[in-house]
């Protein structure tokens, strides 16, 4: 039953999904390849001296605040469009006049959101690294992706937090407008206080100071620091699950 519901929900969100895909493409490619892209490549002398294989220190640098400003409203809007109680109540009611369990609908919707958001992320990262360093890509196509796994982990954990907040908001607030505005305002205020930079991935630490940020050393530190945010989001997701399963459909 799960796969039937999942494929249905995934197809249901295919239009906003295309918008999302284009958005990520624009965000991760244009933003980081035109303009202020910092590709971490140690200086030439450093490079030659230690004879690092090309790609070992390449990374696409960005600031956590920027990506939150850009990505959160889109992830939130997508999640609400697929999940929102009010938008979907009538349709949800129709689906529930059948033998499907509420928990199956919840997990299928959630899985559709995760798939729809994480797949474009992966695709866009695969595209943005070669665009960031086309010369290296020509020389060693796989070498350009040396930093992809840690960066993907950080981006994925950021999107995980975003999705959990979005699903919670879509489940708790009956009006989509509230579901969209309240978490947006709250999180932007938190963002302005600098809390995201420290505790929410993808953080970028300048190590050693003065150098472009390096992921090789800091990725675990970033994950450790963001653990409270990840745990808090997971609690929100569990709460959403219970609310969805127990709330009256009125």
């Amino acid at each position, binding site marked *: *039953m799960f796969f*039937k*519901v999942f494929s*249905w929900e995934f*197809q*249901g969100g*295919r*239009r906003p999904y295309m918008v999302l895909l284009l958005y990520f493409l624009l965000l991760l490619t244009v933003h980081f390849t035109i303009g202020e892209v910092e590709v971490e490549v140690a200086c030439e002398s450093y490079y030659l001296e230690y004879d690092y294989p090309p790609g070992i220190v390449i990374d696409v640098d960005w600031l956590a605040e920027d990506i939150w400003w850009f990505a959160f409203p889109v992830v939130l809007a997508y999640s609400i469009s697929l999940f929102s109680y009010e938008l979907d*109540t*009538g*349709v949800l*009611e*129709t*689906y*529930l*006049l*059948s*033998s*499907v*369990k509420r928990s199956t609908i919840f997990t299928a919707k959630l899985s559709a959101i995760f798939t729809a958001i994480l797949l474009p992320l992966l695709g866009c990262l695969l595209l943005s690294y070669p665009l960031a360093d086309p010369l290296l890509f020509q020389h060693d196509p796989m070498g350009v992706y040396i930093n992809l796994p840690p960066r993907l982990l950080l981006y994925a954990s950021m999107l995980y937090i975003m999705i959990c907040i979005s699903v919670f908001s879509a489940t708790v607030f009956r009006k989509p407008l509230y579901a969209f505005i309240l978490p947006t305002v709250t999180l932007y205020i938190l963002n302005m206080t600098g809390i995201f930079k420290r505790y929410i991935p993808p953080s970028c630490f300048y190590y050693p100071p003065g150098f472009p940020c390096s992921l090789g050393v800091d990725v675990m530190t970033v994950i450790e620091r963001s653990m409270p945010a990840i745990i808090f989001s997971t609690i929100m997701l569990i709460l959403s699950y219970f609310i969805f399963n*127990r709330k*009256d*459909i*009125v």
Partner: protein
Amino acid sequence: MEEVVRLEGLWKLYGGNPALRNINLTIPEGSMFLLMGPNGSGKTTLLKIVLGLVKPTRGVARVLGLDPWKKRHEMFKRVGAMLERHSMPKWTTGRRILEYLAKLKGLREPRKEALKVAKIFEVDEYWDRNISTYSAGMLRKIAVAHAFLGDPELIVLDEPMVTLDKQTRLILRNIIRDRKDRTYIVSSHVVMELEEIATHIAVLNRGRIVIAGSIRDVAEKLGLNRIMIKTSNMERALRILVEKEYDVRASSGKIIVETAQSPKILLELLEKENIEASIEIVEPSVWSIYAKSLLKQ
């Protein structure tokens, strides 16, 4: 007769405001149960509790022996339903949604089952078109077809006649009339096609059941008689009855009088005026039951 639905001491509060108050109701197997009441009387809430979409605040609800809130997914293997606001996703076609809903019901051959109900309600003529292009009536026909997917034992219909064309109303009426082995719960204000086939009725007002039972029992409780008069002097008989302020209707050579009085009094009245007539007691109309029960309250 076994009971298909049993509600005992049922309450539903929304933020402290009671939507349903102490509902006690049984619906026997094979009945055509008509649920009536003014807007906001709690009909849809009651149906949603029966369908497991709303949890009762207090009381017991059993549908086919199951707790609808806890066992909705099991219950719907034997139940079909449509609600007043029966929304459909706009991005798909009627065929695909009916097939998907058949899959959700766990039917073995969803395509075949979907086609079966589509043919009955004549939605197969347009069901390959996108739902966003459907009129309200076309959507309603899909919703009614959904309720009949898999030939369920209990069919719950909330305002099914609204926006349906006359032909589909008659199809629905005929199905209900012919399939007497099924139980139907219908909440409706449009009862013209249904009143002849309704066997039971419940009238709700402000969250309470005003009256409930078989049509005959309810009519008796209300002291409501529906008297059919046959006479060769229709015009005069009608004039006399209207003058005496009776609730009178004439149709195809018969006069129908709805009154709380005994039929004997009517007969005596007509005899006094030298009008020969024969009378027969028939079941009162659901509208007169509805109106009388609300007035009595």
